């Protein structure tokens, strides 16, 4: 430990574990100062102190600070509350909302150390990620989201009053089921904002309804119809954004129902980047709380006791149990992300010969700039494909298991050796490709001239079939579409086979 005289040089921010608003302010100022030193660019911060009950609230509404009412949030709340009360889980350190200002919640029960950790992690780590990462920049509008959520809640409440809770709930249920299929991956979304939404909402209702009618009104002469039936599908190209397709084309939705589909779709879109950057986002925030607090410790602002407590929680967060461990449930995104950002820094600062071979463009460069570039321009999939190093593969002892249902046993496809690095990197990257993780389902055809049925196609990947929820899902889609819905499965040879049907 430090000698007598160096202790005198130290200016501890605090010594006890209790926090006060003055202390929070001081810590925030210090952490902010160091963050600036490292060039973290953030939205303005709003730090809110809340109770554990409010934290559970925030949890159960998927982190939306303002949410419309739905039973599923109630269910979430109840189960979170139960496990919290029983001590089965500690509440997360933090919930942070991708908005401007960036809202982070601190739970009042936490110690000063934990509050500081959360401030560093959420208000500077996540916040800078939200502001910098290209997916968030493209897909979310931090300035408008709070307004939009308010608009959504009011609109849903209004619909409940007018059409009954039951009717609204049904639509929401069906939309929630399709929430993962509500993103147009190649089109840039328009900005969300309450004022505009409200102003345009009525106009949109009328317009959309007329569009829908137009589609169905197009009834050419008979021979032509017969001919075009064979030749033209509607839509001409398969559509992956099911919610969007339904919003624009479902023949029987009322205008208010269309608006609800849109609300769910917009919210799904808002969360879309988070689903694609789990490893990066958490890794980034964890890397920075670790780096910022260590920096403050080196400046003599934090006590040893503070660091002990901090390191203990930090270690828990980034713990990766091995595959044979009882608590193993896949790769911990905090662990992987944190390890990767640290590894990149290592490659920049002290590259080995191997690193120079694998990463000639970053080995020996300024780590702060390199990290910043990585944070801005990648999502999990491409981040791993780009930066997962042989060194880290060895450290984590990663190996690849091939499970093929045509074979009796599992095969070890690759391990952490020279022959395997490349393959492990690719496989892990694929694992984070949303397109692989979630079934690829597309709108294939609408029988415009016939029974108006909707045909969806599931494009199989590696022969993986759909799970047992499929009939249920078809019911939900049929409820939105209003006419029969069919589902076909297309294997890798392009052969389509009927999977299921839901008659209305």
């Amino acid at each position, binding site marked *: 430990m430090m000698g007598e005289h160096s202790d005198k040089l130290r200016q501890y921010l605090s010594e006890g574990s209790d926090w006060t*608003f003055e202390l*929070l*302010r001081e810590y*925030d*100022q210090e952490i902010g100062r160091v963050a600036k030193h490292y060039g973290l660019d953030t939205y*303005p911060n709003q*730090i*809110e*102190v*809340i109770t554990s*009950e*409010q934290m*559970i*609230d925030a949890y159960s*509404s998927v982190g939306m600070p303002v949410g419309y*009412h*739905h*039973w*599923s*949030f*109630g*269910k979430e709340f*109840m*189960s979170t509350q*139960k496990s919290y009360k029983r001590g089965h889980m500690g509440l997360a350190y933090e919930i942070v909302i991708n908005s401007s200002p960036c809202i982070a919640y601190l739970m009042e029960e936490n110690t000063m150390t934990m509050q500081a950790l959360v401030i560093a992690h959420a*208000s500077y780590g996540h916040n800078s990620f939200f502001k910098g990462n290209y997916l968030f920049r493209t897909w979310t509008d931090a300035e408008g989201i709070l307004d939009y959520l308010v608009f959504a809640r009011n609109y849903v409440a209004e619909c409940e009053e007018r059409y009954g*809770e039951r009717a609204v709930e049904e639509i929401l249920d069906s939309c929630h*089921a399709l929430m993962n299929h509500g993103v147009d991956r190649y089109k840039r979304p328009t900005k969300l904002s309450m004022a505009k939404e409200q102003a345009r909402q009525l106009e949109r209702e009328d317009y959309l309804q007329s569009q829908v009618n137009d589609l169905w009104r197009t009834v050419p002469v008979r021979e032509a119809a017969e001919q075009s039936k064979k030749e033209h599908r509607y839509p001409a190209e398969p559509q992956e954004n099911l919610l969007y397709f339904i919003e624009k084309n479902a023949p029987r939705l009322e205008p208010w129902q269309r608006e609800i589909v849109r609300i769910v779709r917009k919210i799904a879109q808002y969360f879309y980047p988070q689903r694609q950057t789990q490893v990066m986002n958490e890794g980034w925030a964890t890397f920075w709380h670790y780096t910022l607090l260590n920096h403050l410790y080196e400046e003599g602002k934090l006590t040893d006791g503070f660091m002990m407590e901090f390191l203990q929680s930090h270690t828990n967060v980034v713990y*990766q149990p091995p*595959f*044979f461990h009882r608590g193993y449930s*896949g*790769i911990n995104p905090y662990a992987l992300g944190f390890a990767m950002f640290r590894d990149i820094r290592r490659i920049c600062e002290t590259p080995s010969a191997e690193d120079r071979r694998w990463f000639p463009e970053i080995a020996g460069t300024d780590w702060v700039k390199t990290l910043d570039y990585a944070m801005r321009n990648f999502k999990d999939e491409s981040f791993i494909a780009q930066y997962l190093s042989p060194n880290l593969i060895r450290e*984590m*002892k*990663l190996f*690849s*298991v*091939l*499970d093929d*249902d*045509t074979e009796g*046993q*599992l095969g*070890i496809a690759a*391990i952490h*050796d020279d022959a395997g690095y490349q393959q492990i990197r690719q*496989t892990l990257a694929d*694992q*984070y490709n949303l397109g692989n*993780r979630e079934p690829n*389902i597309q709108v294939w055809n609408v029988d415009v001239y016939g029974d108006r049925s909707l045909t969806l196609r599931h494009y*199989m990947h*590696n022969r*993986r079939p*759909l*799970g047992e*929820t*499929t009939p249920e*899902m078809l019911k939900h889609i049929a409820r939105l579409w209003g006419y029969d819905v069919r589902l076909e499965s297309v294997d890798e040879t392009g052969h389509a086979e009927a999977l299921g049907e839901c008659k209305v």
Partner: protein
Amino acid sequence: MSNLVDRRLSGKNRSAANRQRFLRRFKGQIRKAVTEAVSGRKVADLERGEKISIPSKDLKEPVFHHGAGGRRDVIHPGNKEFVTGDRVDRPQSGGGQGSGAGGSPDGEGLDEFVFQLSQEEFMNYFFEDLALPDLVKKQLAAVPEVKRARAGFVSQGNPANLHVVRSMKQAIGRRLAMSAGPREALREAEEALAELEAQGKGRSMEAEELREEIKSLKARVAAVPFLDTWDLRYANRVDKPQPSSQAVMFCLMDVSGSMDESRKDIAKRFFMLLYLFLTRSYERIDVVFIRHHTVAKEVDEEDFFSSRETGGTVVSSALELMHEIILERYPSASWNIYAAQASDGDNWENDSPRCRELLIHSILPLVQYYAYVEIEEENPQSLWREYEYVKKMNRQFAMQRILSLEDIYPVFRELFRKKAA
């Protein structure tokens, strides 16, 4: 510089609305769970919340996801001894996608979704749709609140209550009555005078006397006061008791040897439910516990549920005691009286007709409702037959047979179902 906000005092209970929606959606399942919970609970336990579990498949929110099968390549950490090309058996426990790393859809493990219903919510589910037979307004001494009500007219009162129309009517009557005699005399005198004048004796002594008389009679008639103190009438107001909101519940139970533990257990629950229900419907409830075998005894709640006697059964002893207690302490004018009787149907053969007589003539006229449950699988015995006769004659008498713990709730509902409006 960050903006620090203390939100602790605002936005409490934000999830309440979502919780209500959840409860509404799963009403059916929750009700079922509540029913089961009641039959499985201990007596002293009823007034608290309940942990409810619903099969979690009912509340899954489906999404499209991959099923087992096909080909998948998954990265795991922590390799120990594998080398490329090794073959290993599929792990048994994990099942098809158990080991599915890399963010499979949320945990598929739990079969039950468990949550806590608060006591109030629990009770609400429990008592939904139930109401006792029409509540009868009764005079109630115990309730101090009274309401002033009009009650005709009285001859004494304060000026503020003076009833003018009534008083004038009274005055007219009195004037007529008081002047009737003089008027009659006056009419006669005038007739006589007119006759005398017609005979030309208008100046006779006789006529003068008549004139004098007429004068005095007129004075007498005029002297009858227009309005007298006697005429005054005042609006009357009396204190009328508020509608009764107190009830007494009699619990009658057979504790003879033939009632075994499980039957007593069922009976206990029946009373428990009834009692709890009454506590919701009435502000004030007295409960009288009467247990009986060959003789009946009034006991406290604890004794009632925990004691055990041996010997035969004479049901009428309990009915007699109940009747006595009603007469003594619970005049039916001021109490809503409910009675619940539980028995296994055993009774001394000759006593059953007496029970019928007692019920029809002494007890039923006094009570709002009388519920009888028989906890027995065997064929009904004499008591049941006699009670069936009672039931035919009386609307406020109900009876049911309960066979198992699970039957209690439906029976209870049956007995106290809300009357269709």
